[in-house]
């Protein structure tokens, strides 16, 4: 994990450990991650598969099979999308500190995160609207290629072709900019 070298905010130090926390290997949640169009003010285990029962709707949108499910009386329509090539989803939890106090006391200040599970796809659900390529969550994937283009090191030829038009640029001005994106659900 990087330290913010930024000039605007006080540096925040934290770590994210993406290795599986225990010896048995990573828990694979592929096919079991659901993104609902609501905020459920509950954090903890829940018998999801006993109550949340997605069913195929028979409708195909942008090549994806639309599913139907109900939550709190509302009808949801969703599709399962794979994460883009080269990406992996993680469920993070606060890292427990050895011999530490209760995890609750830790919650507020720890910035050390550990992977609890991994996933390669997720199902996102809309209330009342058909899923489509225009949904913000799918459009978020655009950022991956843009970020890639922004942060790719610039080689000598590219620099030469640019500088001939726009004047001198410091070699590393583009590649050194650190942008960290995390979107909240």
């Amino acid at each position: 994990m990087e330290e913010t070298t930024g000039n605007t905010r006080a540096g925040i130090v934290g770590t994210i450990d993406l290795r599986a926390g225990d010896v048995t290997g990573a828990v694979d949640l592929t096919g079991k991650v659901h993104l609902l169009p609501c905020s459920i003010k509950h954090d903890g285990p829940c018998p999801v598969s006993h109550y949340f029962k997605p069913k195929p709707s028979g409708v195909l949108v942008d090549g994806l099979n639309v599913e139907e499910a109900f939550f709190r009386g509302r009808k949801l329509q969703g599709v399962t999308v794979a994460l883009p090539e080269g990406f992996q989803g993680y469920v993070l939890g606060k890292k427990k500190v050895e011999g530490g106090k209760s995890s609750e006391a830790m919650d507020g200040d720890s910035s050390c995160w550990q992977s609890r599970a991994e996933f390669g796809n997720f199902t996102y659900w809309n209330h009342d609207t058909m899923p489509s390529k225009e949904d913000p969550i799918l459009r978020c994937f655009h950022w991956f290629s843009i970020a890639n283009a922004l942060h790719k090191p610039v080689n000598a030829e590219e620099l030469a072709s640019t500088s001939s038009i726009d004047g001198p640029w410091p070699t590393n001005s583009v590649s050194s900019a650190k942008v960290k994106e995390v979107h909240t659900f």
Partner: protein
Amino acid sequence: MGSAPLPKWASEPCIMGIDEAGRGPVLGPMVYGCLYCACSYQKTLTSLNFADSKTLKEEKREELFENLKADNCIGWEVDIIDPKELSAKMLKRVKINLNEISHNSAMGLVSRVLDIGVLLTEVYVDTVGDAEKYRIKLTERFPGIKFVVAKKADSLYPVVSGASIVAKVTRDRALRDWVLDETAEDMHRNFGSGYPGDPETKAWLDYHKHPVFGFPTLVRFSWGTCTSYSKDMVEVVWESDKLDEDGSSSGKRQLKLSNVGVSGYNRKSEDVESSGKGRSKFFQARKLELITEF
């Protein structure tokens, strides 16, 4: 529902009655039923002793239903509206109220019977909402048919009484044989009548409530009865409610969306989803927010 080939009498002028069962209950399907026969058969129909299904004992209703099913001079249809669909429609962004659902169901039955090839000339309907407005709506949709829309039509017109038996027996059987979608352990099917005042129904609701999921999908979440349980449930805030806070209010049995599942504290709308506020359009459109802590 009726027998496959169209009976000969169906090309004579026919009358039909439409009635509903299970409009009030907090759980289970709502059923619309219709019964039709040739106008010339009306006298016989009167002698079959149909009465408003509510005034009959269950066994009597079952018996009458079996009789009318066996009667070659009578046709019937039902529309069973799943409680999931009722909840979903009443909790849509643009809410569909129960009257509208009822009207659509009744009109669906008329269309279905016409499509079979039955020559409907008169249709008797128990009213939902304002009788005259309802009559005009039906007449505009089906100009060739004379509609009689009345309160208590089920006790005034034998053809509607018959329809009420079709609907009521179908609703009772559907509830009796209901298979719960949910697979949690310890669930049972002693639903009672489904009316909010029925102690058995109350006990069932109380036993099957769930802090996160609310209730099994058998329950009509849009019913006022469910509000009293919201304190036992975790708060759920919907993105769609934030989008159209000023949605119209409707039927008294319908909940205002803002009351659904609200318990204790309220949080800021920013909690529901990220906004990308104050950032470039690219990020706003994708709701990508820059955060420094999480």
